[in-house]
């Protein structure tokens, strides 16, 4: 961890986005995580993604629970709204906020403990309901804050720092999210920003539940030989099914790829996910095929990354509840309290 603030001086050629902000304007306070923590790379990717999609910082609402990962919303987009919830309860708090103020962009940041252990139930139900949010799991397979016990996503056979072997089966959050009906599911790696940044951009512009399982090595407790969540292991076993570019609705569309190798998915807000296939037999819009592919590759010990599934016509919680267009927290008494005549009308109908 670092005591001094990052100097506000920046490179003379630093670009500005459509809102006139530089990337540096999307930063937060200096991280207090361990030096080299994968989570800091994810924060940097979120900063980059928000900058690139010209997100107005006050339109972002950041939520987190407890854990190393859940500290990170402090380290990006300082002017955004934020709520640091109780351990594992972030999905419910986020859901509540989303019900009240549907006009914000929701970003939940959680870890493997906060999501797959204490918060598994909350996670499952938020996904099942289709809350419109981006849910990033910073997954390091270890309880870092309590000095490195195996977490629920730790692979069977993975070794702890002192050599102990994990005997339990892991929870695969990507498979779980697919089964529960998430409409945008991706997996990535903190050490691969070229893959991660577009995935976050696509997720933030997705209407529906977007789950990103981001492997994020814990340099202090889970980056040794024998760990399946170390930098080296992930790099060796990374099986990317596609590479993605996110094209904003405003940008002119240029087709400079050979036909056939590209798949374009138009999202609800008009943004285009341009997928460049890496694995020939992979279709990112087929949920069942994705589940099968993931199961096969998991058995082979490969880590499948990329945009694994997207449903561009997804419905979210508000669609299901048929709420009004105006966010509920903007409705006034005039909107909510019926006049006396309405009561009389009801009474009359019952007489």
């Amino acid at each position, binding site marked *: *961890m*670092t*005591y*001094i*603030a*990052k*100097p*506000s*001086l*920046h*490179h*003379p*050629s*630093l670009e500005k986005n459509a809102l006139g902000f530089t990337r*540096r304007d999307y930063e937060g306070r200096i991280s207090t995580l*361990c*030096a*080299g*923590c*994968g989570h*800091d*790379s994810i*924060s*940097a990717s979120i900063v980059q993604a928000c900058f690139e999609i010209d997100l107005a910082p006050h339109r972002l609402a950041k939520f987190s629970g407890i854990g190393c990962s859940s500290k990170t919303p402090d380290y990006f987009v300082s002017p955004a709204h934020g709520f640091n919830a109780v351990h594992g309860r972030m999905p419910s708090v986020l859901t509540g906020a989303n019900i009240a103020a549907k006009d914000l962009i929701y970003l939940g940041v959680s870890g493997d403990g906060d999501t797959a252990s204490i918060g598994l139930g909350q996670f499952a139900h938020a996904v099942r309901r289709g809350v419109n949010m981006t849910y990033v799991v910073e997954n390091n397979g270890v309880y870092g804050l309590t000095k490195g016990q195996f977490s629920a996503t730790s692979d069977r056979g993975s070794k702890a720092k002192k050599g102990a072997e994990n005997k339990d089966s892991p929870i695969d959050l990507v498979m779980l999210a697919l089964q529960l009906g998430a409409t945008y599911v991706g997996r990535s790696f*903190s*050490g691969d*920003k070229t893959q991660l940044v577009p995935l976050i951009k696509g997720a933030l512009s997705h209407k529906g539940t977007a789950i990103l399982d981001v492997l994020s*090595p814990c*340099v*202090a407790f889970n*980056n040794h030989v024998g760990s399946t969540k170390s*930098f*080296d292991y992930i*790099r060796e076993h990374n099986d990317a099914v596609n590479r993605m570019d996110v094209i904003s609705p405003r940008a002119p569309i240029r087709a400079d790829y050979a036909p056939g190798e590209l798949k374009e998915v138009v999202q609800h807000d008009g943004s285009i996910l341009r997928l460049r296939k890496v694995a020939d037999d992979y279709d990112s819009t087929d949920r069942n095929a994705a589940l099968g592919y993931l199961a096969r590759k998991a058995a082979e010990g490969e880590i499948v990354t990329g945009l694994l599934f997207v449903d561009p016509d997804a419905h979210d919680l508000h669609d299901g509840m048929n709420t009004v267009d105006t966010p509920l927290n903007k409705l006034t008494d005039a909107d909510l309290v019926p006049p006396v005549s309405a009561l009389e009308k009801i009474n009359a109908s019952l007489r």
Partner: protein
Amino acid sequence: MKSTDIGNPDYFHKVVDCQWACPAHTPVPEYIRLIAAQRYADAYMVNWKSNVFPGILGRTCDRPCEPACRRVRVEDEPVAICRLKRVAADNKGDVEHMLPPKAAAKNGKRIACIGAGPASLTVARDLLPLGYEVHIFDAEKKGGGMIRTQIPRFRLPESVIDEEVDFILRYEPVTHFGTRIDSLKEFLAQGFDAVFVGTGAPRGRDLNLPGQKEAAANIHIGIDWLSNVSFEHTDKIGKRVIVLGGGNTAMDCCRTSRRLGGEDVKVIVRSGFDEMKASAWEKEDAMHEGIPILNFLSPKEFTHENGKLTGVTFTKMHWVEDGGRKKLVPTGEPDVHYECDDVLMAVGQENSFPWIERDVGMEFDKWDMPVVDPVTFQSTIPNVFFGGDAAFGPKNIIWAVAHGHDAAVSIDLFLNGGDVLQRPPPGTSMMSTKMGIHEWAYDNDVSLDLRYKVPLVEPEIALRNVKIEVEKGYDQLLGYKEAQRCLNCDVQTVFAAPLCIECDACVDICPMDCITFTENGEETELRQRLQAPALNVTQDLYISETLPTGRIMAKDEDVCLHCGLCAERCPTGAWDMQHFYLEISHAGCAPKSPATRKREPAPA
């Protein structure tokens, strides 16, 4: 690109832009840190060793270091390096005990220095402690040369000159002050083992325009007039003064005129304001004293009445393109006339060697200047060396000092049977500044303060007397704040590829986007695709060996703040902040072999 050889002392030396730009290669960040730590005497000695005249240079240096300062590229204004040097000099207290000891015994070799200016005095200072018997000859009664004669007292008080000249005279050279050398031939007959010529560029250029003879009483050569003022032969000037010329001497002339009774003082230059030779700050200082600078006016004629100067007629000039080259030509508009009582001509200086017989055996070039080796400062008479303005024409004190050091090295080698072309390499050291997980032996928290102005004496008081020093200098607090603006560019970011796990932490934290992990490529192409394009090709890229993922680390040195955040965020110590110290070798330093260079690894 090939991976960078950081063992080559030039690589990290170049990163310390100020030190690299300084002709004497003064370790600038080192003394600035000492000033911040209020260790003024130590800061003074770092300077004294390297540039011999810290108090003088802290007021008068042409500051090649400041335009080079990295702060210019990351913010706007450079660190006030020059005026910080003065802070060290003003607050140093007694440093006598820190000066190197006098030679225990003489080595029997006799050296003559002709001229007692900065170059000669540097030669004397370098050689005296080694046991040489140094004789200094100068026409003036005191040492200092142009420092004493040409720099006005309101910029440089005499007490400062006396003190720093005396630091050299305490090594007891044999001084022959008040002695003019009129014949090199006769002089060489005196049998000195080596002779150093440091006679400066003592002749002010003359315009020889119509009317000059008739009005001669009120037309003066700038540097001669300044030296008359310095020696108090001249103590007044007319109310209306025109200064011709756009160099620093012209600025000294006009500001001195303001103090000797000149009320309507103008500087008039032939070319444009921007092309003037004077340093930007000297122009500012002149204008601050109510002196207008008129440009694009070429002097044509001095007008006079009854043998008295009445003014100067000027032709209007402008730039025209002539086959891709800019040329200054008359505009064709009517001439303009400015009235005045006195004219000071400061249109350049020249070397002149009427006292060197052309048959003495020394080769002269087509400009009738002695042929001098630019590295060894040796003339074609093997035991005669040149330095300062006498060697390659008018420059600045700091250049004269640098020449003096090099000439002293040559003289020492020459008289000890060495090859003067075998220059001793600089002494360098590298040492980690890591004190703890995020503690460093330097203050890495970058100051966002803008450059502090040097307090001045109010103009009404300053203009009353030529001896009142116009700059008050920074006090200790301002000096501290200004010193904190230094980016510590000598604390180098050193990368150890075998330790790197490519976690990107350094890339994420770097405030200036200096660091990129990417595929290797050819330099011009690689510069384009870094985290931020590296468009300043005068600044190097630091390229690592190939990393396990097949990529390289490329760091653009251009705008690095040396804040050390890359090293603080590095989990494996692949980045380390190491203090690079380079001291050029002075006379008497035994050449060091590269193997003796200290290079300490970072603590794990």
